[in-house]
């Protein structure tokens, strides 16, 4: 079998001034995942490492750089799935952690559950020793600017993020 990793950094509108950094980010993340596969690593380790890199890159809407809720907070969601066992782990509405994808993997590996949300997911993260990070460490100037712009009564956040329908 010839290993392969395929990565996306989100669909929708990418402003020209951000496209170069975003492209560098997905290429770098794909290389990181592929390095794991070439070294004989498994596909789950590869996808989690790939997505962790993208979560840590403020050019993307996940982890650091996440868009904000209407109240100006960060609430993040993530999922992993293993095709060999059909094992899966997911979290939603998690705050104050750097890498929700790693928490999703722990849900799969360490619990009998498939999906934990909100405060329950946070409690689980604490029990697994995942360090909490300050909320502001996940917020970028760009995400705050977009949040403010979309507070206007005539704003269309979905169109702003996804672009107009063709």
């Amino acid at each position, binding site marked *: 079998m010839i290993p392969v990793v395929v990565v996306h950094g989100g669909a929708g509108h990418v402003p020209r001034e951000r496209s170069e950094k975003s492209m560098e980010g997905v290429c770098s993340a794909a290389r990181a995942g592929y390095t794991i596969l070439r070294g004989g690593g498994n596909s789950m380790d590869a996808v989690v490492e790939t997505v962790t890199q993208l979560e840590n890159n403020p050019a993307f809407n996940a982890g650091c750089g996440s868009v904000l809720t209407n109240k100006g907070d960060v609430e993040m969601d993530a999922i992993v799935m293993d095709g060999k066992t059909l094992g899966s782990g997911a979290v939603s509405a998690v705050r104050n952690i750097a890498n929700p994808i790693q928490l999703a993997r722990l849900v799969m590996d360490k619990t009998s559950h498939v999906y934990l949300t909100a405060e329950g997911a946070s409690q689980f993260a604490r029990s697994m020793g995942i360090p909490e990070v300050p909320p502001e460490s996940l917020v970028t100037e760009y995400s705050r600017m977009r949040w403010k712009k979309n507070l206007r009564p005539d704003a269309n956040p979905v169109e702003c993020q996804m672009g107009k329908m*063709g």
Partner: protein
Amino acid sequence: TVGAVAVDSEGNIACATSTGGILNKMEGRVGDTPCIGSGGYADNNVGAVSTTGHGEAIMKVTLARLILFHMEQGKSAEAASDLALDYMKSRVGGLGGVVTVDPQGHWAARFSSLQMIWAAAQNDTLHYGLYTGE
């Protein structure tokens, strides 16, 4: 939203997807990403998908599982991805994108939105794109 799919040298397949959601979302709103079959799905017998786009539309058509359904019926990763994205656009008016692999390592990065940033690594070669056709 960010995501990845992979096939390793043993032929095992996995997917991962992570997101901050949609701009200025209502507190407590959850989209497709953490929902199995919507934000992602992986089955060694069929393939794996990670999705991005308009979450409510993706959930209504369970986009990841829909693509794998088409692959189970014999479609390629690329054709199955296009078919499901077209269905989502025409049926519920949603745009999005996907990365898809099959157990043989054939892969696709397809989208109905104007852009999707993607990259793929195989055979020591890196492929990448932003607009349709790249």
